[in-house]
């Protein structure tokens, strides 16, 4: 061996490092942006509401029972009209999503054989990746007819034996709250199921073993140990999904209808708050008109609702995490009592007296089977829904897809069914480009700062600030995208119009960047969190500075996961419809864009316009566009999945 202590090469290790300082300042600057977005959102809402309530009285807003902003005379702004519709549609959705989600989540966590979990999880979760406009299209054109033509006669038949008159009075509108609620509910199942599954799986295995060793069945363990321990997670999941459901825009608009009338019958057309915002934005009301401001007033109510729900959900979640970690900490503290003698216990012992217990009966076992049966039915329902939808779009649309459909401009089509999607595809590509340029550096940089620097500073305030920012970001992820659309209108289309030149690709792309920024931050942070701490310690132990550890060790290790997060964010942006409608995506543009200052079309917006057309040939074009969009998303998701599985190999460390 040839170890020499000669010539130690220590390098310069002064306390001050210019790279360290500048990387902190730069990343810290990026990390402020989410907070700025929150401030901007609140500012815009407060400002527009202030102007709105200059003209409409508070009392009228809350007490009026009509919503008629379009009337020249006798305008009424009774928010309860929209609130009632939102509650009805949302209530139906919750009735679907919560039971299905809970049962499926528990089943996947506790009962499902591993092969089924492997198949079922991605299938269920792929529902969250499907753009809501696709679900809306399906609800409107496929589910509603089923309700009207199959379900309604059935229900009538049953009811007529009881009350003929009531049965005859039943009818289903072509857009109705029931259908919107059902589909929103089904689409939200994965949100509930994955949170519940996570909550149940996080209960430490030691507790399961402890209860199994006492002779409890799986179902008994579930009821007595797992569910109580995971209850806050379950409640948190319900609240979070409620906030999503109330903000859901495209399904509610397309399937639920646009009628702003106070009614309680879910078989009729009813406009939720989100749907009203979208429909009103479509009419592109004049800036600063009362109609324009009414959009923001409704937006503010919706924003507040999701904010409150999300905050409550977060608090429950935090309580849960606190409890969960507390239950994992075994207090290994030294006994104060140094007496180690044990009293004579011979008289107390009753070993092996099995007749003190009732025999284990099949009844105890049977709960396991009943529950599994229910869960399999729930799973099958969701899977069937998904397959039906995709099959339906494929069957309707595949004939339309050919080279000219992909390359033709809409204007060149004489016949409605011959329109092409070149302009919307190019528009979407440009939008993605702009959104990525804004969002990726900001999101990744902010995540690195929030994860690797901020909580690790040795100041008392740094952890608190980091906790506050965490809450802000989670609120941002819960804000409905239509609200971001309103922010975009106010901020990019109006305030910065000198730069963006109004309703242009630049404005649209920037708005999409705001939509995906919180998702990117969350995804990147979780990728960084998956890097084992032992690697960071290894870096420090060879004398690296924090920035060197971050850029040489942590980020490269997390890189595949970060990329996969970026891809998933892009697919969200690609399917985003509501925000772009609010910004003013066109239904018709007769050229392909060549710079960012042009007006634009986008693929999902095109689907929206085609789906709501009354011409069957145009509707089929919509199905074809859906197939194209789904194809692109499928490729994206496959790549993301591939990268993530490569990553999981690394984290076996």
């Amino acid at each position: 061996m040839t170890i020499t202590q000669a010539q130690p090469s220590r390098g310069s290790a002064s306390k001050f490092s210019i790279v360290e300082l500048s990387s902190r300042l730069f990343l810290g600057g990026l990390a402020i942006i989410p907070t700025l977005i929150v401030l901007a959102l609140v500012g815009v809402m407060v400002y527009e509401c202030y102007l709105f309530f200059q003209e409409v009285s508070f009392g009228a807003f809350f007490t009026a029972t009509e919503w008629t902003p379009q009337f020249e005379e006798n305008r009424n702004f009774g928010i309860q009209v929209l609130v009632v519709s939102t509650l009805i549609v949302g209530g139906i959705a919750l009735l679907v999503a919560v039971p299905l989600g809970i049962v499926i989540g528990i089943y996947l966590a506790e009962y499902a054989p591993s092969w089924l979990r492997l198949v079922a999880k991605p299938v269920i979760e792929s529902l969250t990746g499907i753009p809501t406009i696709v679900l809306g299209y399906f609800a409107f054109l496929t589910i509603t007819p089923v309700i009207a033509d199959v379900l309604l006669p059935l229900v009538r038949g049953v009811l007529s034996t009881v009350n003929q008159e009531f049965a005859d009075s039943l009818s289903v509108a072509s857009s109705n709250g029931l259908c919107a609620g059902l589909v929103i509910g089904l689409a939200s199942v994965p949100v509930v199921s994955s949170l519940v599954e996570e909550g149940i799986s996080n209960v430490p295995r030691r507790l399961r073993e402890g209860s199994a060793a006492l002779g409890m069945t799986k179902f008994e363990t579930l009821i007595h140990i797992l569910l109580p321990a995971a209850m806050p997670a379950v409640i948190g999941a319900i609240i979070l999904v409620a906030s999503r459901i109330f903000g859901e825009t495209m399904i509610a608009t397309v399937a639920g209808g646009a009628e702003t009338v106070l009614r309680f019958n879910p078989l009729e057309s009813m406009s939720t708050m989100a749907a009203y915002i979208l429909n009103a934005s479509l009419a592109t009301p004049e800036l600063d008109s009362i109609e324009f401001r009414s959009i923001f007033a409704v937006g503010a109510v919706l924003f507040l609702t999701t904010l409150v729900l999300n905050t409550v959900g977060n608090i429950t979640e935090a309580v849960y995490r606190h409890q969960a970690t507390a239950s994992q900490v075994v207090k290994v503290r030294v006994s104060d009592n140094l007496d180690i003698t044990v009293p004579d216990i011979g008289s107390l012992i009753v070993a092996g007296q099995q007749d003190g217990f009732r025999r284990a009966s099949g009844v105890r076992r049977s709960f396991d089977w009943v529950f599994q049966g229910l869960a399999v039915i729930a799973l099958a329902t969701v899977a069937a829904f998904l397959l039906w939808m995709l099959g339906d779009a494929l069957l309707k649309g595949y004939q339309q897809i050919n080279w000219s459909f992909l390359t033709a401009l809409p204007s060149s089509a004489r016949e409605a069914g011959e329109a092409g999607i070149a302009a919307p595809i190019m528009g979407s590509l440009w939008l993605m480009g702009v959104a990525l340029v804004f969002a990726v550096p900001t999101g990744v940089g902010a995540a690195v700062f929030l994860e690797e620097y901020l909580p690790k500073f040795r100041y008392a305030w740094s952890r608190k600030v980091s906790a506050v920012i965490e809450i802000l970001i989670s609120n941002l992820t819960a804000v409905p995208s239509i609200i971001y659309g309103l922010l975009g209108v106010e901020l990019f289309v109006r305030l910065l119009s000198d730069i963006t030149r109004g309703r242009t690709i630049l404005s649209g792309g920037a708005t999409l960047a705001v939509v995906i920024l919180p998702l990117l931050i969350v995804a990147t942070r979780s990728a960084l969190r998956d890097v084992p701490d032992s690697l960071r310690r290894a870096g420090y132990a060879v004398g690296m500075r924090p920035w060197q550890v971050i850029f040489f060790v942590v980020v490269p290790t997390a890189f595949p996961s970060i990329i996969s997060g970026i891809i998933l964010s892009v697919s969200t942006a690609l399917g985003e419809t509501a925000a772009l409608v609010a910004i003013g995506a066109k239904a018709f543009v007769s050229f392909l864009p060549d710079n960012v200052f042009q007006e634009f079309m986008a693929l999902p917006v095109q689907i929206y316009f085609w789906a709501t057309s009354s011409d069957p040939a145009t509707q089929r074009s919509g199905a074809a566009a859906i197939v194209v969009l789904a194809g692109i998303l499928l490729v994206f998701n496959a790549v993301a999945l591939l990268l993530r599985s490569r990553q999981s190999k690394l984290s076996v460390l």
Partner: protein
Amino acid sequence: MNTQMNEVRSESEVNIPAFRLENMSIAYSGNVAVSGVTVDIPQKQLTALIGPSGCGKSTILRSLCRLNDLIPGVEISGRVELFRQDLRQMEAITVHRRVGMVFQRPNPFPKSIYENIALGLRVNGYRGKIDEMVERSLQQVALWDEVKDRLRSNALNLSGGQQQRLCIARALALQPEVILMDEPCSALDPIASLRIDNLLNQLKQFYTLVVVTHNLQQAARIADQVAFFNTNRAEGRIYGTLAEFGPVVQVFSEPQKQETYDYVNARSN
């Protein structure tokens, strides 16, 4: 019903082994963890399972109460008998009640002290008075005096040693015939573990105890019988076999095999 029960009781009073393992092997998704174990574990004695890590002693222990059922991919071959009955043909719930288990790290439920013990009684349909049994179990582990004024407080507020005694009480309450323990002291401080040792020395007069430990001194302090498992290598894989089984004095003082001698003397100075 009663006659059947009496049969079981009288049978267990005859001097038959608590467990009989015949050529038992355990594999995790195809990888053999422990192979060809044949041994009789006597009743009303404390048998310590010792050996280097990876020798399969915990794996064996977990399959004696069918806990490996919870883990997918575990295959068990050979025969295991619990008081002459084929363990693997019995219903898992029944096995769990007759064979108690105490784990390496204390794992009380996140519930009250009282509820930790009462829950097992309730789900198993205990016919007696639950309050009485809770008190009696806590007295058996010498915890009653320390907790009797706060039975309703959360079990997680107890110290590590108290939590572990609570877990033993929880197992005792079901009046098992056998109690298995997987390194019950490894997460405890020295005083708390000495107290558990003393408790085990008392309990072994009434119960069959099987204890995995990596601490040879502990094994020498508490065991009647010692089973030494050793690691073997084949094709780059490590698996365990039972190297030697005998009374504690024999294994520690006059081991029959060189490998036992090496292990026992290397570790105990």
